[in-house]
C-alpha cells in the first residue's frame, strides 16, 4: 500500500465523482433516472482525446471541448425524449448509451473495438482534485439559486411546478445538459488517466455503477454523492485480497445500505459548516431524536 497506489485509487474515485456529481443533479435534484451516462462519458472521452492527440490541444481546453460536445449531444437527445415520463425516459437513455458504445465499436477512426492506445497521460492527482472542487462549488451554487430550487420543484411535483410558473421542460433540459457536461469532463479525465480508450469501458455496467453511487450516497445530497463515490470506488480495491468474492461483498454492502437506509447514506442532508454546527449542538444537548422539521430541510 504505497502512496502511489492510494493516489491512483483516489484519482479513480475523483473521476467517478465527476460524473456522479452530474448524475446527482439529474437524478437527485431533478428526479430523472438515466442509464446512459456512460454514453456521455464516452463522448467526452473520445472528443477530448481527439483534441489532444490529433489536434495537439492543451489538456483543459480539450476537456472543455469534451464537455461541450457531450452537452450538445444531450440537448439533442433531451429535445426528443424529455417529454417521456419516468420509466420511459430511463429506457430511452439506456438505449442511447448502448447506441453510443456500438457506434464507437465500429468507427475505425477511433480504433473501433480494439481500442485507442497512446493518449497522453495528462491527468494527475492535482488537476483531478482541483476540477472536482470547482465542480462541487458550481453545483452547490446552482442548487442554492432559484434555478436549482426550480429543479427540486420539478422533482417534487411537476404539475404544481408548472402552475407556479416553472418551465418544466426547460429545467429538465438544463439539468440534463449540465449533467452530461460533467460526465464529458469525467470521460476526458479518464481517457488521459488510462491513456487508452475502448468502447467496452463505457458499457451499461458503467452507467448502472454511477446510478448506484448516486442512490447509495443519497438522492438530493452533494456530500452524499462525494461520500458514495469515495466509498464505492475504493471498496473493490480494499477488498482485493478476497479475490473473486469482492464483488459479492460489494453487492451485499449496497443491498444492506439500501435495506437499512433506503434514502441512501446522506439522503437529503448536506454536510455544510452550518449543518455540522447544528449536529454538534444537538449532540451536546443530548437529544437523540432528529427534530422532525430537519428532515430534508438542508437541500436548499
Amino acid at each position, binding site marked *: 500500500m504505497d502512496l502511489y497506489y492510494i493516489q491512483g485509487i483516489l484519482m479513480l474515485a475523483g473521476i467517478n465523482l465527476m460524473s456522479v456529481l452530474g448524475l446527482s443533479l439529474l437524478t437527485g435534484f431533478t428526479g430523472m433516472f438515466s442509464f446512459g451516462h456512460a454514453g456521455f462519458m464516452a463522448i467526452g472521452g473520445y472528443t477530448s482525446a481527439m483534441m489532444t492527440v490529433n489536434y495537439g490541444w492543451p489538456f483543459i481546453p480539450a476537456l472543455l471541448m469534451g464537455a461541450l460536445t457531450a452537452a450538445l449531444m444531450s440537448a439533442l437527445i433531451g429535445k426528443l425524449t424529455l417529454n417521456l415520463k419516468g420509466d420511459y425516459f430511463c429506457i430511452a437513455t439506456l438505449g442511447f448509451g448502448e447506441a453510443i458504445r456500438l457506434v464507437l465499436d465500429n468507427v475505425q477512426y477511433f480504433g473501433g473495438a480494439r481500442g485507442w492506445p497512446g493518449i497522453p497521460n495528462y491527468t494527475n492527482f492535482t488537476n483531478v482534485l482541483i476540477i472536482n472542487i470547482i465542480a462541487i462549488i*458550481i453545483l452547490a*451554487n*446552482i442548487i*442554492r*439559486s*432559484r*434555478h*436549482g*430550487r*426550480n429543479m*427540486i*420543484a420539478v422533482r*417534487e*411535483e411537476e*404539475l*404544481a*411546478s*408548472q*402552475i*407556479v*410558473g*416553472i*418551465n*418544466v421542460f426547460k429545467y429538465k433540459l*438544463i439539468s440534463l445538459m449540465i449533467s452530461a457536461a460533467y460526465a464529458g469532463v469525467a470521460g476526458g479525465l479518464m481517457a488521459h488517466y488510462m491513456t487508452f480508450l475502448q468502447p467496452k469501458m463505457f458499457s451499461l455496467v458503467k452507467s448502472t455503477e454511477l446510478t448506484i453511487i448516486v442512490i447509495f450516497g443519497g438522492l438530493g445530497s452533494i456530500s452524499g454523492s462525494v461520500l458514495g463515490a469515495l466509498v464505492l470506488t475504493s471498496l473493490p480495491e480494499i477488498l482485493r485480497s478476497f479475490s473473486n468474492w469482492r464483488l459479492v461483498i460489494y453487492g451485499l454492502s449496497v443491498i444492506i445500505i439500501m435495506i437499512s437506509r433506503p434514502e441512501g447514506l446522506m439522503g437529503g442532508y448536506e454536510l455544510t459548516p452550518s449543518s455540522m454546527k447544528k449536529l454538534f449542538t444537538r449532540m451536546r444537548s443530548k437529544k437523540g431524536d432528529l427534530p*422532525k*422539521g*430537519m*428532515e*430534508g*430541510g438542508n*437541500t*436548499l
Partner: protein
Amino acid sequence: MNILEMKNLTKCFGGLTAVGNVDFGVPKGIISGLIGPNGAGKTTIFNLITGVYKVTDGKILFKDNDITNKEPYLISGQGITRTFQNIRLFKKLTVYENVLIACHSNGNYNLLESVLRLPRCRKQEKQLKQKADDLLEIMGLKDRKDLIANNLPYGLQRRLEIARALALNPELLLLDEPAAGMNPDETAQLMTLISDIRPKFDLSVLIIDHHMDLVMGICEKIMVLNFGCKLAEGTPQDIQNNPKVIEAYLGVEG
C-alpha cells in the same frame, strides 16, 4: 370590467362533453363563485383556464389577451394562478421552501450568474427570501416555516397553497374547493382570510366550492354549472331564488 372572459368554451373527452359552450366573465376586483353539482365541469374549467387541459373549442381572454391553449407556465406568468382540489404542495420540502420556490419569478438572474454568485444574484436571492418571509408572516405560517409541508394540519396546508400562489404576484386567483374537508370554524376563518387578501394583494378571485354559506357569504357574482352547461349567472340572491338552480340541486317538487 372583466379580467377574464370565456367565450363559447368547450371541452370534450372523446364523446363526452365535459364543458359545453360556456360564456362567462370574471369581473375585476371582486370575488366570484363557480358552483354546481358533482361532475358539472367546474374543475375542468379551471384546468382549461390554467392550460392543464387543451381547449376543444372556444376562447379564453385574460385582460383582452388570448391565452387559449398556452402552456401552463406561460399562463401563470401572465398573472393567473390557482390552488388544487387535492392539495398539491411540494410535500417533502419545508413550508418556507414551498413559498421560496414560488417566488422564483420575482428574480431574473440567469444560470451563469448563479454559478458565479455574482452580486445581482446575491441581491435578488436576499429579496426573494425576504418576500417569502413576508408572505409567511401575512399568512400566519411564520412559526411553522421549518416544518415539512406534509406534516402540516390540513387547514394549514390549504393556507400554504394559497401563500404559494400569492408568491407569484397574481392578478387572478383561482381557488378550487378551498374549504373542502374543513369544519365550520375553519371555513369561517378561511372566509375572513380570502376577504382579507383580496384587497391587500389587489386580486380578482374565482372560487369553486360546495359550502353554500362560504360562496353566498363572500361572492358578489356566481355562475352555476350543470352537466357542463351554464345554468344561471348573477348575484347570490338571484341564484338562491332561481328555480332552475333549485331544481338542479334538489330536484323538481313532486
